[in-house]
């Protein structure tokens, strides 16, 4: 990804580059950056990927401080990781997500993603109640997605910078310690 840093801009300004030229250049860069290709899942089917996206956003949702897992692209990252996992791990993901969706159909009569918000929560509340001692694939799905969501979200810029407020790394002339 190409960005024009503040330092570069200042350097360009001090080098006498005309302000209008800079604006044009910055706009061009911005336009170029604003056209990311839609993520194509490498392992999950479109339906599975959608389910994963919905689940991750429920687990770490947008809150006043920061956007949630959907905006952070967590499902895309999980897909990448699972696509590089062993066949056993891949099968476990697929089987457990299916079990979770079966649970939704049993409790709510339709696919998890087709449930209204309160229906989705009813399913997740029931699975979460068992998370310390998972005995079914549906509960295991919850535990697996939850861990992957935490891993994916807090290793994203939204999760680490915006939500947690990590301030580094900066090039400091001095480290003052506790002040």
């Amino acid at each position: 990804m190409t960005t024009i840093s503040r330092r570069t801009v200042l350097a360009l300004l001090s080098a006498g580059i005309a302000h209008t030229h800079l604006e044009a250049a910055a706009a061009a860069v911005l336009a170029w950056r604003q056209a990311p290709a839609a993520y194509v899942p490498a392992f999950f089917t479109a339906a599975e990927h959608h389910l994963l996206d919905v689940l991750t956003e429920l687990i770490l949702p947008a809150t006043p401080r920061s956007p949630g897992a959907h905006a952070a692209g967590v499902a895309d990252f999980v897909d990448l990781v699972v696509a590089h996992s062993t066949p056993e791990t891949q099968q476990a993901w697929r089987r457990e997500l299916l079990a979770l969706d079966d649970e939704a159909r049993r409790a709510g009569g339709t696919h998890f993603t087709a449930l209204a918000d309160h229906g989705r929560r009813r399913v997740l509340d029931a699975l979460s109640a068992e998370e310390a001692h998972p005995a079914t694939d549906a509960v295991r799905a919850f535990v697996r997605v939850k861990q992957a969501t935490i891993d994916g979200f807090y290793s994203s810029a939204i999760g680490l910078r915006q939500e947690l407020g990590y301030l580094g790394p900066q090039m400091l002339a001095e480290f003052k310690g506790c002040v």
Partner: protein
Amino acid sequence: MPQQPYDVIVVGSGAGGATAALVLVDAGARVLLLEAGRMLTPATDFLSHEMPWDLRFRGEGPPGAYDGLWKINEYTAHLYTNPREDTYDALDRFHWTRLRAVGGRTNTWGRSCFRHGPLDFKPASRQGYGDDWPLDYDELAPYYDKVERLVGLAGQSDRYPNMPDGIYAGPPHPWRCTERDLKAACDRIGVPVLGERTAALSVPHDGRPKCHYCSGCGRGCPVGARFSTLDAIIPKLQGRPTFTLRTHAVAREVLVDDRGHARGVSFIDAVTRKEEEVHGRAVVLAASTVETGRLLLNSRSRQHPAGLANSSGRIGHHLMDTIKSGPMVGILPSWRNRPRVNDDGAGGSHATIPRFNYDRTNGYHGGYFILIGTGFGRGATATSGIPGYGASLKEEIHSRYGSVLSLRGYGESLSRYENRFDIDPGRTDAFGIPQVRFTCGHGDNERRMMEDMYGWMERILRACDAEILPYSKRLEPLGDATHECGTARMGLDAKTSVLNRWGQAHDVPNLFVTDASGFVTSPGTHGITTWIMALAWRASEYLAEGLRTGDIG
């Protein structure tokens, strides 16, 4: 006899090898330095400033690639030899961490520089266990001085028992608020907390800049603010007519003459795969503890049928490493939801808990440090065990971030004959060189020390009013601390040791070893790099004098 182009062939460009090369070249010797890996370019090889999202797998690498391999991850994997690819028996018992490149593991080391004290050299006569070193602290102290002047330490005098103060280029890095809180809590229970003595510069030194506090030191430093031989020694040697650096030179065997003395080294060029020979009046091995032992065991000849300099049969035996406990993690209620500050600092904690068990009655020999993990880091901390999902989960993780204190014990392991490596008859490496296999494990003393570590870690966390997260007591496999040592040990008796007090092989007068192979004991502090360098400096001065007078070579 034709004039040889080199006086000394040095194998390995890390702490022990580069130090030897510098001292020898300064003394007028013509030195060829063989390095198995490549030259590194700090600006592009060290991903110190990259964030997780800059890397495809967020720094973790593809699933399973580096799990459980401390120091090897997506930021550093291009530097290290992955034991899952270059295999050996048995990874579960010994973590062998190899970094084949100019500078070796000084590129990514932990940077702690505690001197080893008078008691550490004389465990048998002064503490009642193990074997004494064939030299004492006072003999090595002047060399610690020389090494520290080169390395450039941030630190201060502490006057702490058996941990002699060093020469500090600049002041210690100041403590974070959490480190001050920890000190106050430890004061209440009589546990000392000292400032780290670290090779991350707090002032410009020797043409290198001071630390810029990005905290990425473990991935290498792009500006050389932490000491490495790549940044601080190799540039002093390059361009000098008596120094030659040969990279991609994978040593296979030390060659001997009719008398059984070293006459050179055969190596494989990692690029052309061709075997070459180089000759010198003396050979210095500093390929890292296991590689040096492997090279000696693979150097079998009529005069040295059990491997070069191995009439004692001790090469590969007495394998030690700093023992390393699992972590104990506490959440400090008073630190929850702290206002965010840049806590990065000079990489790792600026405080440490030194060996404080000297005058206590212990059920074990030796001692240990407790290392500290604290601050707002580059990842969420302590995210496990939180029930539920949604905004409450997000809030709890936000609250815990930066409120975690993580402790780990690093201690002395005892030298035992049965902890060893030898040549595996059934396995060679990618160059066809016979590989080693490990037969080792922790002993009763290490397990008793571990119990003591966990007891004190818990007392410290309780003194901090921490909520202690579930843990299980364990020691990491040997090798995990990357302080492996002892497998060509020094000693006065040629029947039970490989090297004399100068790092010179008892059996081969023109063969020296200047890495941690020569250690008689493992450290009860953390960090062995400046110990290696001080011994290497002393050995190299001795060798240079021998070459000058003709007593050696």
